[in-house]
């Protein structure tokens, strides 16, 4: 049954996650980050049991609906959508590049197709796209309007990795399959979440074979995939997700099922914590703050600006969260005042500028302004790296449907518009006159880190993924090492002066950013030192403790230290700047056995001195032994051998381990994947999936039962999935 040889470009990879599901058809020559990213949600369809990838509003003739940008949409006769601006009532038929489809209402298939087309558009274009790309369909006299932005009523299929709504999940799989439209020779490899039960896997296997009619289906555990990407034999995989973190040890490439665990902490826990600290911001704002450049977790020893570092005695130990408290040291009042002002006025109507065709001029102007400002404040606040500033701001990008652009679109070809749009979005890189760095960092914040699925995902489909992501930021904080270096050389700033300067700055900016009621709204939001406290809600401790539990319960004593020596921290939850280092620090400072305790060699030595007394006064110092080491070690080795020989036959004793871990190291990131280097290895599970698919489907061709073939499925049923 299995056609000999699946082709590289025929393999479909799907990696479902709680927020977004990654997918890709075909293995490229050099493995890339996932091409497509679908939000892991569906919307209830028009009929019971039917699901659609986008929210659909149903309008009867004459009914009106208020769109988010204050536009009115009226269902005209024959189900034609009529759009009306609220201000000027010039009604216009929206004709955004093929968004209107006067399909003959073939029921749900057409609907789904249209939706798919659209979805792909969205994926391929930038998510920031503000075009009104709702798909409209005529169904009798009803108007169906697809609303990308409305997430109300969305059914998120997975929670903490578990599939909570199977119907929706399957609809999503179907939707992904249809949008990629693979051939009949396409085998599928799916990344399975560690918390899926065996039954869950059977269910998915059944669906894949019976509905998608694939010739081969394989499942790869997320931890195994991450491990495969790093190509290490033993590892401790910490996969920080949205609402959960999976912790798994792998020994000899094998997952240790019994002791793996999933804890309910993840990227979202950081949002929640930030929200507690900054109750004035909306969830969306918090999310963007977390993903912005200014949110970072400071290395140990670096004080949070304006706060006393209570725990500074030892540089190796991270400052403890509880000593810093719940933001009592920042100025919530100032934030209140200014934050609100910003919300109202700090808005630039980028789209309007684009539409007016004056993009270049605008950018030039801005650049000049910025340059002036910089010159004026050469030694000032703005120059300081993030970690030294008590407050810093990020650009909040709000998605609002853009009527102006929509209207103008009839004049431009879609492509031209798109490219211009892109120019604005990624101005610092793609245009010849770069935008000020402040903008860049914000654009980076919005576009770069992809944890939120529905918006701001970097598009791998774009030829230049780093174009979106990497915006070297003169003002933003420098990377870790340089930060450490410069940390002590920095001069202390006068806080008041700083604040005054900033106020002046802000006023200027306000002036500059005027007008505009619609469009992709960007506004600066200033936050205080709360931005350094994202991980202080206990997430680091919880992960560290769980990791220690997991490794300590590994049954193979000798491999525990091996696992500690190649810790892999992956998952989008750990994209927050400094998170990985902070986590490693937490683990090291709490659980690593200090080298001075001499558990490695000295403990093996026969002691010639009296046993320590109860008070510990006779406790020998390790140094006592140094002169005896070689001999004693030989003795010990000989004794061990003798004991083994004696016990060997009946396995009487299992050798005793040493207390561990005595060293903890992060696994080396793989080097051969240039595409991933810039993208970051947080989603390296997808890299592992590609490697796995290559081996299972192409190299191995099922010789080692790397996947379930159609024939296997026919003879064994869904349970065949457990044989791989």
């Amino acid at each position, binding site marked *: 049954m299995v056609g000999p040889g699946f082709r590289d470009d025929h393999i479909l990879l799907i990696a479902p996650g709680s927020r977004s599901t990654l997918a890709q058809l075909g293995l490229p020559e050099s493995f890339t980050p996932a091409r497509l990213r679908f939000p892991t949600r569906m919307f209830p369809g028009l009929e019971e049991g039917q699901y659609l990838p986008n929210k659909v509003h149903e309008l009867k003739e004459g009914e009106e609906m208020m769109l988010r940008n204050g536009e009115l949409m009226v269902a005209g006769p024959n189900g034609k959508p009529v759009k009306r601006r609220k201000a000027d009532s010039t009604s216009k038929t929206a004709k955004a590049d093929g968004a209107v489809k006067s399909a003959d209402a073939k029921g749900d298939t057409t609907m789904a197709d249209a939706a798919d087309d659209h979805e792909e558009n969205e994926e391929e274009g930038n998510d920031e796209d503000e075009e009104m790309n709702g798909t409209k369909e005529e169904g009798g006299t009803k108007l169906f309007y697809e609303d990308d932005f409305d997430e109300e009523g969305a059914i998120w299929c997975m929670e903490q990795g578990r599939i909570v709504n199977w119907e929706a999940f399957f609809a999503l799989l179907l939707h992904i399959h249809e949008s990629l439209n693979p051939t009949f020779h396409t085998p599928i490899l799916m990344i399975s979440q560690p*918390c899926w*039960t*065996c*039954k*869950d896997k059977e269910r998915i296997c059944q669906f894949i074979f019976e509905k998608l009619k694939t010739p081969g289906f394989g499942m790869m555990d997320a931890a195994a995939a991450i491990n495969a990407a790093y190509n290490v034999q033993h590892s401790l995989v910490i996969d920080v997700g949205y609402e959960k973190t999976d912790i798994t040890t792998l020994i000899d490439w094998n997952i240790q*099922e*019994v*002791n793996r*665990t*999933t804890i*309910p902490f993840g990227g979202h826990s950081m949002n929640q914590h930030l929200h507690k600290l900054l109750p004035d911001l909306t969830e969306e704002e918090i999310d963007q703050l977390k993903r912005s450049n200014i949110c970072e977790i400071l290395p140990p020893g670096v004080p949070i600006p304006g706060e006393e570092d209570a*725990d500074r005695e030892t540089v190796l*130990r991270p400052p*403890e969260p*509880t000593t810093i408290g719940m933001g009592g040291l920042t100025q919530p009042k100032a934030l209140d005042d200014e934050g609100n002002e910003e919300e109202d006025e700090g808005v630039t109507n980028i789209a309007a500028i684009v539409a007016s065709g004056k993009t270049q001029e605008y950018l030039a102007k801005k650049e000049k302004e910025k340059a002036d400002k910089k010159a004026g404040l050469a030694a000032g606040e703005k120059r300081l790296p993030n970690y030294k500033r008590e407050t810093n701001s990020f650009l909040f990008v709000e998605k609002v449907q853009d009527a102006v652009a929509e209207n103008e679109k009839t004049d431009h070809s879609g492509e031209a518009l798109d490219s211009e749009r892109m120019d604005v979005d990624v101005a610092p890189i793609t245009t010849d006159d770069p935008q000020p760095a402040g903008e860049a960092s914000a654009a980076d914040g919005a576009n770069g880190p992809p944890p939120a699925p529905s918006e701001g995902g970097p598009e791998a489909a774009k030829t230049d993924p780093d174009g979106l992501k990497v915006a070297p930021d003169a003002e933003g904080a420098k990377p870790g090492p340089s930060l450490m270096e410069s940390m002590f050389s920095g001069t202390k700033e006068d806080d008041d002066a700083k604040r005054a300067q900033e106020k002046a700055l802000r006023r200027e900016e306000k002036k500059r950013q005027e007008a505009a009621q619609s469009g992709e709204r960007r506004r600066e939001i200033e936050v205080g030192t709360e931005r350094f406290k994202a991980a202080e809600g206990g997430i680091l401790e*919880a992960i560290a*403790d*769980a990791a*220690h*539990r997991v490794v*300590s319960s590994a*049954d*193979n*004593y000798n491999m525990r230290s091996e696992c500690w020596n190649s810790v892999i921290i992956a998952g989008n939850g750990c994209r927050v700047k400094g998170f990985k280092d902070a986590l490693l620090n937490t683990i090291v*400072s*709490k659980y690593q056995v*200090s080298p*001075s*305790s*001499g*558990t490695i060699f*000295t*403990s093996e*030595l*026969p*002691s*010639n001195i009296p*046993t*320590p*007394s*109860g*008070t*510990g*006064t006779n*406790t*020998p*110092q*390790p140094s006592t032994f140094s002169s005896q080491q070689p001999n004693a070690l030989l003795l*010990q080795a000989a004794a061990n051998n003798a004991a083994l020989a004696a*016990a060997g036959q*009946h*396995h*009487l*004793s*299992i050798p*005793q*381990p*040493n*207390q561990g871990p005595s060293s903890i190291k992060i696994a080396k990131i793989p080097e051969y994947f240039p595409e991933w280097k810039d993208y970051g290895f947080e989603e390296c599970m997808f890299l592992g999936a590609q490697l796995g698919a290559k081996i299972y489907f192409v190299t191995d061709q099922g010789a080692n039962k790397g996947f379930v073939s159609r024939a296997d499925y026919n003879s064994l049923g869904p*349970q065949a999935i457990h044989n791989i």
Partner: protein
Amino acid sequence: MASTPQMSGVLPPTTKPAELEYGGDEVSALVLDPGTGTTRCGFAGEDTPKTCVPTYYGIIPDPEEQKYFGKLKIGENPINSVVDGMEIRNPMHEGIVENWEVATEIWRHCIEYRLSSRIEEHPLLVTEPIWNPLKKREKTTEIVFEDFNAPAYFLVKSAVCESFANSKPSALVVDMGHAYTSVTPIIDGLPLRKGSERTPLAGQHLTNQLRHQFTELGIRMAPWLTLKGKTPYTDLATAPALRTKDFGFQPHQSFLDLQQDRFIHEFKECVSETWPEAKTFPADINNLPDNFRGIADKAFEFPDGYQRRFGVDRFLAPESLFNPSVSPKALTGDLPKGIAEMIKDSIDHLDADIRANMLNNIVVVGGTSLLYRINERLNHELMTMFPGPRVKIHSPGQIPERKYSAWLGGSILASCGAFHQLWISKQEYDEVGANIIERRAK
């Protein structure tokens, strides 16, 4: 006699063959091995259980709550999180279930956590200790059929499973677990009640002894979760201040104990050692004879950073398993017999003609048997006690096989073809009631 599965597959005449509708090949059977320390569960036919959940559970007492009088926290992660007012309890008492409501929930969690969300689809094999009374066996049956709605079920003595796991139809099974160390003679797959012994000298006993020992030494046993970090030091007299976390409440003592158990467990693994010979352990470890030499010190670091080298004192707690009178913490009530003594008792109870067979087939399993050199000690003691016949100890060389021996045996049993006719089906239960277990599996 009992109709426990035999390798021959011959059914006793009193038993009618069950309908063969639950062939384990179509729907995989589950094997549940509930213990006091952990509850293990997995699919029949596999070599290790898929889940191993602590049987300890957390409860936030709330008299308003009707069923459990509090909010339950079940599973590895919940009981290891600091929660205000959470107490840690255990539904087991003397190795058998006491609190059925909670035990049911733990079993359910153990199965649904990673195995199957449809508990009602799988035949279920449950293990039980040999001293499980009839009432409890009936209750187990009731829970499996009423609460879990299992299609088929069987109850097997864990000692039988352990002998099967070591491919021995006849053996003297020594199971050193968390709460109890038990000795059970198995003849041709049948456990003998006569000759079965148990003693609380097991993992929990060790933990308590060590806890006491550390307290006596003046060690601050702050567990990891209550600390912000550690400061290495070696002298208790000049100990730096503890860097404790402020939770805004005081975690319950039972929670702190459970957390302490974590590093005590590590101590057991890495530092504790069994004195390899019988009756030569120094009577007073603080006044060692001059000729006493050659004990390797082992260092241990406590979570607060205290480092200490342990010499002879690291043998003390394991020694108390064999010689309870040396226990650092005096035992209350009658002094139990040491493990070797207990094995001797068990052998003495047996008919003379099977003693040699038993002595030649001693199977030692259970997590506590992983204590360094405990089998050498056992071997030495038994050789001294029975100089005539050949004493032979069998113990799996792999750690999982020791820890999960009972589960593994259950997994082998439930997946072997002859076992299928032994399943008690839901239909039979409906006809006969919970007493079916006594008829079908004594």
